[in-house]
């Protein structure tokens, strides 16, 4: 893995690393990717129509509005203001 790929992954993952951390994570990720690469030896392609492990959605709830959690309880894990979630300014 090179630094350009790591930068791209950090953007996707919303993570930052210092220069020293980058060196360490590049080395670790390269070893991990080497391990993942062994799967390429396996000669088979995925068949979307032949998934033995299909998830059965046979007991879905009816799509009806129902009472949910109280807003106050949902907001107990943050610092709401006027019943809203506070975030930094998104648009100038």
């Amino acid at each position, binding site marked *: 893995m090179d630094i350009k790929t790591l930068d791209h992954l950090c953007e996707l*993952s919303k993570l930052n690393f210092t220069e020293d951390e980058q060196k360490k994570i590049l080395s670790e990720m390269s070893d991990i990717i080497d391990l993942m690469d062994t799967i390429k030896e396996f000669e088979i392609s995925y068949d979307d129509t032949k998934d033995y492990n299909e998830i059965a959605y046979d007991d879905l709830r009816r799509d009806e509005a129902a009472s949910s959690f109280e807003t106050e309880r949902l907001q107990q894990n943050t610092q709401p203001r006027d019943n809203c979630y506070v975030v930094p300014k998104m648009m100038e």
Partner: protein
Amino acid sequence: MDFKNVTLSELRSLLDEKKIGAEELAKEFFGEIEAKDDKVLSYITVTEEEALAAAKTAQVRIDAGEAAALTGIPLAVKDNICTDGVRTTCASRMLEDFVPPYDATVIEKLKRDNFVMLGKTSMDEFAMGGSTQTSAFKKTKNPYNTDCVPGGSSGGSAAAVSAGLCAAALGSDTGGSIRQPSSFCGVTGLKPTYGRVSRYGLVAFGSSLDQIGPIARNARDCGTILNTICGVDPHDATSRNVPADDFNAKIGAGVKGMKIAIPKEFFGDAVDEEVRNAVMNAAKEYEKMGAQLIDCSISTLKYAVPAYYLISSAEAASNLSRYDGIKYGLRGEGRTFDEMIRDSRNRGFGDEVKRRILLGNYALSSGYYDAYYRKALALKQEVIKEYNEVFEKADVILTPTAPSVAYKIGAQDNDPVKMYTADICTVTVNIAGLPGINTTCGYNADGMPIGMSMIGKRFDEATLIQAADAFEQQFSPVRCTL
């Protein structure tokens, strides 16, 4: 009372016959926690006040002669299972102060039985790891030797059961996280079939692989807990409505005529000789009891670790993208939205979680998706096909649970590849969505427990419990001396 040996059935009798009260029993366990948990570090949160109140309510039910299987029984719960009003951290700084506003479905079901929750147990951060050393709060130790890891990710639950700090516990298993710590700590752990137990309220890691299950002192106790927590749930579309009257119904039927398959790939050089020998000796015991041993092959095992890490990390990267510090979780600082999210995630997540997120996003990226993620899905299909073929001829499959016994703390630090490959014996069960149970089959020269795993057909946990119980009945466990 020796809490390292007492089973749920024995506690049920003691409570029902009024030889001990629910509150007194809970206090006994809190005494044990107070005396011993500073050595084991199995609990992140101890809920004494809530537990004693629950015990009082349970006692009323017991006195009325209306006790259910788990009424008044003191259990521990892994800290990635949401508990209304009780902090649920996932052993992560990200959720250090998170208090769920609801109960997971399994907790709701246990509360209907009036169980007593002693507390929340430590684990690898977000269940990512096999040592419980990635916990941000309590790096749990093995009760058999506190220089060794307890396994993971449900290491706190397994260690608490092993050390007698709870009667049994709930864990979760995405790639072996119930079975491997149970093996390391000398207890019994059951990973149910995918869909048997609702995942609602289990903090998501790999959604197509995660499953909640019990860790206890024997297979019967695992069945007792599974009887309570199983079932379809409208909150979890992947839970299945497969009837099961009693998972312990086949206990005592023995294993005469049972066909036990032994896949040769699980007994290769990667597995320590002591472990191989102990599991093969257990196979011979089964043969003596009348079971028929069959050779079989799971040829895809060679690729199982990369397939598992690609699928689970891809799902983890997606699931953990919700942690932005806005609605809940650690809130970072920053003048812009992007800065704030990055700061929250940098400070909230530990190293292993960051590695998995990077790997998951790598596997899902344009240009890599087909080579990694779809290939892993293709392998998943092959693993399922191979297991289906084996189960045409066999009732259960016998394997080691882990390639080694519990290793020294620090031995696998800074070597993620070594840590990942140690999951080789357990991950195919999750990939195929099958049930698996670990029970102790021996001890190595240093007295550390060796676990074996029985793998069953989908939704056939009852046969696994039957087979594991048959072995346990003739095996003399050596409990830890802590």
